[in-house]
């Protein structure tokens, strides 16, 4: 969409790490191929998801405008971005930030992208990512290049892959930590990024690291795999390791992760991750996405059996030199302050509001004289101008030690305590000093119906409304309730983590009086502490417009009836679920439409409510087999060969065309035999044996002709080409790949064992 898109690649050539640059070129080729209709829409959808390029609400081209469902008049003649997904429809770009760690320049670039390609706002997610909304797919390669130039990749930000590895935002500075988990989280994130063992999952896979067991920062127990720092004495020496959990997850059916190992030495961290990935790939559900998360596999097999299989896989792993190499780098990881430690001057004059902000948003680090400051972002949103301001402050007061948090905020670490008043003044000037961090008003919400295709009700609209009311009531300053957590999801999928809130909500709809009415299911008593230690009780569905009143009742009752020191969870348990329901039962009926039509409209909206806009979600990614994937990659290679030929690079063009064929043969071998030979000679021999000699690859008309193209190219590989022979080899590669697709389709259609 942007007129400057063609120029950025050259502009940034020297600034992008070659690996990232090459990956983005590949993605751009895939876009080009899809535009030409040369990649299947499902394959393309999974491809873009694995680059963090998501669909957004209404991208089917249909939208209910409050009166009727209309077809949005997008330009015709373009391909889809995936099944039922219009090319020109705005989408979302997710930006993966491992453990939430960012520097100032990265913040500035995200600000630039938010302004130039999105709606001016960058959004921090509950996985410490950033998201940009209302992005055009044609702009995504440029967005990726500009990110790559500052060391950020969007790879595997979505899709059936290892999602962003999260960690406590206080890791390294926390007073309660066992040790700093940051370098381990980083090591895990980069080791598993693009790892071949992690490319064939049935669903996404989420990993978290926590520095201690008690505090909730990393929510380890709601993860597919979670690690809590631990030390143990071995042979008289203290050794680092992790308590390991597997099989947790929220979603429709929340599962608490199970204790997999009480102590896993750090040396075993990466091998264990690979072994678990193998087990998940081998035995995890692939067809039914509703039961494809690893939590279902752990449940189905039982923890012991699951463990055994992981141990078996671990035993069979060939040592990877990177295990040791990456571990050796751990001690070199160090965050340092910019300024000397300081003391907050008790007597110095301070700006109004400083004390409240200090009490709520400042955390005194384990390192005396330093503090971590939380910048509370309303609904996780921050403007481009504010991001630049945060970058300035990160440079001025710290060595650019910024992190995102799973509560959708930012933290500035290593601020000298003496600088706190000055920092507060600057944050306040930038409207970034709201003293609500971690309070009841610091509400977490998923995108909901604002942008998510699966959203049922407006989680962000409700969050904004509750936030405003709670602040107006001073609930964030009321010692009794100020520390309660509220989390809201737009549907049962729990991206807003409603299960682990004191008070959680998720969007549902109810048919009343012949209309569809937005509601929120209310959950109470979930546990944020102890790494998301327990999940909330569902009480009932409340009409969206009455949720503020329901919330107020719980707040009021807890405030007045709690016993000394009684937590909200204990209070809820004491009064019981039936009583909780009784408290809000009268709020559940919906008045007739003619009496109060506002009930039939969601928060932050003006249209009569409908669920007709619900789309097909992409959270999970399209389920595409690795063969589909590999064949798509081969087509891309053939396409690249064409480009090379046009650029006059004859030998490289022919060589690339040959590789496309060889990789196509490899893909088929992988499907048929589960074997994945690397050596070109082995691929050739095995392909000949299993696909040519058996006639499996034979076309009904052309017979073995297409296989011969590959054989001929293999035989002459290395011999010089002229433009004509190179062109022919490229064409042959394309035909060979067509035949590979047909062969794969025939194998899929064949009866089992046939």
């Amino acid at each position, binding site marked *: *969409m*942007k*007129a*400057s898109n063609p*120029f*950025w690649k050259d*502009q940034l050539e020297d600034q992008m790490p070659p690996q990232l640059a090459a990956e983005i070129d590949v993605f751009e080729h895939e876009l080009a191929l899809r535009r030409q209709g040369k990649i299947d829409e499902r394959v393309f959808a999974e491809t873009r998801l694995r680059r963090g390029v998501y669909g957004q*609400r*209404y991208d089917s081209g249909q*939208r209910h*405008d*409050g*009166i009727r469902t209309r077809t*949005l*008049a*997008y330009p015709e003649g373009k391909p889809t971005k995936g099944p039922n997904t219009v090319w*020109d*429809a*705005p989408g979302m770009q997710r930006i993966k930030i491992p453990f939430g760690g960012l520097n100032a320049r990265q913040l*500035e670039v995200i*600000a*630039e992208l938010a*302004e*130039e390609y999105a*709606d*001016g*706002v960058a959004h921090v997610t509950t996985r410490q990512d950033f998201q940009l*909304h*209302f992005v*055009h797919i044609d702009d995504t390669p440029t967005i990726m290049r500009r990110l790559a130039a500052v060391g950020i990749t969007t790879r595997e930000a979505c899709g059936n892959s290892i999602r962003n590895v999260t960690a406590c935002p206080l890791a390294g500075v926390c007073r309660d930590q066992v040790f700093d988990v940051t370098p381990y989280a980083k090591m895990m994130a980069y080791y598993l990024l693009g790892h071949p063992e992690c490319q064939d999952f049935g669903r996404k896979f989420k990993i978290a690291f926590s520095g201690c067991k008690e505090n909730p920062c990393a929510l380890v127990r709601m993860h597919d795999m979670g690690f809590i720092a631990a030390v143990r004495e071995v042979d008289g020496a203290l050794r680092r390791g992790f308590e390991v959990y597997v099989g947790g997850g929220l979603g429709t059916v929340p599962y608490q992760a199970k204790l997999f190992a009480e102590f896993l030495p750090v040396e075993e961290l990466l091998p264990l991750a690979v072994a678990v990935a193998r087990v998940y790939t081998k035995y995890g559900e692939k067809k039914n996405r509703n039961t494809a998360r690893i939590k279902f596999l752990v449940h189905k097999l039982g923890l012991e059996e699951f463990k055994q299989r992981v141990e078996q896989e671990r035993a069979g792993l060939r040592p990877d030199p990177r295990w040791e190499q990456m571990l050796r780098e751990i001690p070199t990881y160090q965050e340092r302050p910019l300024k000397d430690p300081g003391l907050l001057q008790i007597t110095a004059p301070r700006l109004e509001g400083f004390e409240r902000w200090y009490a709520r948003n400042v955390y005194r680090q384990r390192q005396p004289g330093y503090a971590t400051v939380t910048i509370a972002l*309303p*609904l996780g*949103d*921050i*403007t481009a*101008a*504010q991001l*630049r301001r945060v970058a300035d402050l990160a440079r001025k007061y710290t060595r650019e030690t910024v992190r995102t948090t799973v509560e959708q905020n930012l933290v500035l670490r290593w601020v000298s305590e003496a600088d706190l008043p000055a920092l507060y003044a600057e944050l306040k000037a930038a*409207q970034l000093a709201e003293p609500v961090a971690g309070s009841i008003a610091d509400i977490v919400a998923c995108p909901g119906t*604002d942008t998510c295709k699966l959203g049922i009700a407006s989680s*962000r*609209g409700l969050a*904004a409304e509750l*936030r*405003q009311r709670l602040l107006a009531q001073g609930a964030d300053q009321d010692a009794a309730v100020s520390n309660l957590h509220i989390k809201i999801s737009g549907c049962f999928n729990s991206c807003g983590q409603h299960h682990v809130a004191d008070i959680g909500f998720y969007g549902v709809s109810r048919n009343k009086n012949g209309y569809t009415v937005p509601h929120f299911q209310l959950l109470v008593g979930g546990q944020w502490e102890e790494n998301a230690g327990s999940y909330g009780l569902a009480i009932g569905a409340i009409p969206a417009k009455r949720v503020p009143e329901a919330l107020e009742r719980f707040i009021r009752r807890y405030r007045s009836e709690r016993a000394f020191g009684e937590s909200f969870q204990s209070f809820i348990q004491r009064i019981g679920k039936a009583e909780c329901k009784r408290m809000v039962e009268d709020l559940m009926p919906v008045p007739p439409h003619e009496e109060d039509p506002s009930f039939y409209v969601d928060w*932050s*909206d*003006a*249209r009569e409510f409908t669920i007709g806009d619900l789309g097909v979600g992409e959270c999970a990614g399209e389920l595409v087999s690795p063969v589909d994937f590999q064949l798509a990659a081969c087509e891309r290679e053939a396409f690249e060969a064409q480009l090379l030929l046009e650029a006059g690079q004859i030998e490289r063009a022919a060589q690339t065309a040959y590789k496309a064929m060889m990789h196509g043969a490899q893909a088929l071998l992988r499907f048929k035999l589960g074997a994945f030979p690397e050596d070109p000679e082995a691929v050739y021999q095995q392909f000949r044996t299993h696909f040519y000699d058996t006639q499996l690859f034979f076309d009904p008309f052309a017979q073995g002709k297409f296989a011969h193209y590959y054989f001929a190219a293999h035989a002459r590989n290395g011999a010089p080409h002229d433009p004509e022979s190179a062109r022919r080899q490229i064409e042959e590669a394309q035909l060979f790949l067509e035949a590979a697709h047909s062969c794969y389709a025939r194998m899929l259609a064949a009866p089992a064992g046939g």
Partner: protein
Amino acid sequence: MAKQPDHINVKIFALEPTPEDLAGAIPVFHRWIQQNAAPELLIDVADYRHVPAGPGVILVGLEANYSLDLTENRLGLLYNRKKPVAGSLEDKLRQAYEAASAACRRLEQEPEFHRKLHFDPNSCEVIFNDRLLAPNTLETFERLRSGMEQFFAELWGRGTFALERVGEPRERLRVRAAVRSSLTPLI
């Protein structure tokens, strides 16, 4: 050869006193979608009222967005052109300004804002929303000055206005244009 700027944004400021709450923009923009009230394909409404000095309420379109924007805590109607526009700089400016201006007139008539919201016809801000095509430098500003002057002369009359480059270097190139006598702007 210097690259031609594109993706021109125009913000027409609201006159004081401005409405306290922008909630009214939500039904207004939804109605605009129902009525196809702009030449662009209008898609959805995004509510950012909770973000201080943020984009306010946005009417998201395919070729352009319209918003009641609060950047720098200054309310205005922002027209953000996303799809390239053919022609000279003056053509692009004219397209963006006219689109913004038409939206202002329409907003002033909407029941939610009637007599509560007025826009200043004598000043605006031009934002070049592409750092590569129009880097935020004095040189770019000077290069584009004559095109801008030509357009604003057409709008306000030659020699009646001033152009000023505003903001800091990391921002997009941003130019404030105002009629010199507009200290007490016309309503």
